[in-house]
């Protein structure tokens, strides 16, 4: 069991008559670099929400290192080691970059319930947050208000908040979404330098990102797993090309 960090068994969720996720069996290996791709409306985001506990499944189970966490709330799952980033930045907008990370680190080390000493006395939290910003090359921006940063660097803060939780499993929901192509490499470099022990699942539209980063790819279509394999296998799979690229061509024609 130990080599599988996150696993789902027959995971499903419907909203009324609409089945968004339909019986997904999925395994994320320990230390994986795994990508989840699929056309719009394939159920990728719903799937991530089921993994993180934002939504409860209508059937199936979620297992973390062999342990059933289906009934666990979102906050508990974070404590157990599942962290995520969001497709659209969810930062503490009015606070400095350093404070953004400190909030996450303070939460992880259990400082955030303390009422009777100043936060400034937790130099361990501040030091670790600063260190994390340095490794992400955000050190020079630490004192700036996070909403004043260019979007690409805001995406890095989004990532830093999740890494500050020291997760075992990290779910990245389109980490480069909205970033100008000239800045995408900042995000990709940061993702490539993530500690090896973290199992990473990346949900991504951009095939360049997927093929550069992932060692394994799962294709979702219509709420179910359509294909899974190495990037090379997926790229060569004619059905995937048909479904996925056909859909992409269709949405391009409409958009």
């Amino acid at each position, binding site marked *: 069991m130990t080599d599988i960090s996150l696993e789902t068994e027959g995971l499903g969720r419907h909203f009324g008559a609409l089945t968004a996720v339909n019986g997904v069996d999925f395994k994320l290996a320990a230390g994986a670099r795994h990508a989840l791709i699929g056309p719009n409306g394939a159920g990728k985001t719903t799937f991530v929400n089921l993994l*993180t506990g*934002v939504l409860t499944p209508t059937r199936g189970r979620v297992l973390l290192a062999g342990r059933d966490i289906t009934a666990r709330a*979102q*906050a*508990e*799952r*974070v*404590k157990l*080691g599942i*962290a*995520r980033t*969001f497709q659209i930045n*969810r*930062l*503490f*907008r*009015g*606070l*400095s*970059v*350093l*404070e953004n990370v*400190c*909030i996450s680190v*303070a*939460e*992880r080390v259990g*400082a*955030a*319930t*303390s*009422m*009777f*000493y*100043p*936060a*400034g*006395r*937790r*130099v361990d*939290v*501040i*030091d*670790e947050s*600063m*260190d*994390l910003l*340095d*490794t992400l090359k955000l050190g020079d921006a*630490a*004192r700036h208000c996070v909403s004043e940063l260019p979007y690409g660097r805001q995406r890095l803060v989004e990532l830093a*908040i999740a890494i*500050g*939780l*020291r*997760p*075992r499993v990290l779910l990245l929901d389109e980490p480069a979404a909205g970033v100008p192509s000239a800045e995408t490499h900042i995000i990709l470099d940061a993702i490539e330098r993530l*500690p090896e*022990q*973290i199992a990473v699942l990346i949900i991504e539209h951009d095939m360049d990102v997927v093929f550069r980063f992932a060692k394994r790819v799962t294709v979702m279509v219509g709420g179910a797993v359509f294909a899974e394999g190495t990037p090379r296998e997926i790229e060569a799979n004619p059905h995937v090309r048909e479904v996925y690229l056909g859909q992409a061509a269709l949405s391009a024609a409409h958009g």
Partner: protein
Amino acid sequence: MSVALAPAGAAAAAARLAHPAARTLIRRHHLRWWEALPWAAAIGFYFAFPAYLAFGTELLITVLFALSLDLALGYAGIITLGHAAFFGAGAYAVGLLAFHGIWTEPITSLALAALVAAAIGFASGLVLLRTRGLTLLMLTICTMALLQEAANMAHDYTGGFDGLPNLPIAPVFGVFAFNPLYDNTQYLYALAVLLVSFLFVRTLVYSPFGQSLTGIRENLLRMHAVGAPVRWRLTVCYTISAALAGVAGGLWAQTNAYVNLSALDLDRAATVLIILILGGYGRLYGAFVGAVVYLALEHFLARVYPTAWQLGLGLLLVLIALFAHNGILGIGAMLWRRYGRGRAEA
């Protein structure tokens, strides 16, 4: 847990902590010289305006009430228009105990007022804080209206519309009696209670817990995603805020020696909200500035223009809403950044 980040040598750590951003956080809770000003002014007021001490006492109580609201609204982002529920709960707790001759010792009465208000805050918070925005706003008003109607209907105990007059309040420490004609004792007593409450709130907002409240205010959904028990934390904050509002209400009952339904009025809840917005919320001293400006306008302008002074207040609020979302202190901070030494205050 599972990930070891780069090993931190002592020198490297020292360098990181010397970074301006880190230093700002490490020093944020330090006392600054100007923080003595409100207290110096309050003591100065005592000696300079002995004829206005009743007004001064009202002002101090209003500051405390606004401070309690700042904790919930300014720091945790709990939108409420029903904070007079807790002010009233504290006032009636003190009033009922004193009027029926059960308990008249002032300091323990205030502690009981805090407990009663906290209990109501906790119970209502468990339900209310599941909602947000306008729903939350309406539910806070409902809670307050229910309490007011309960106080009205239980007139055998509460005096209903007439309230409870001539409350017997024992002397503070058994020595300093409240004299209805000279408010010296009331003023100093209220000042002492405000100081203790303020030190408590100040400690709280600079604590890691206070920081997490700020996180909830700035992005509630992200706080869930970093593993914070958001609703529980909001409930704790709301309960503490209610307790402080209860202390303010208890003080009001003691220093005026009466309680009536106005303690639970929407008017009171709206006024304290206006005061906080006027002064600037989420900055601790906004309660002081807002209360002084509002009550000064009310007290002095109302004499000069008895019919139109609220027009002036309305115009001031419109200007604040249009140009300075952070109230008078927000304007001050902006000017300080622009024309001062260029350092933003914490």
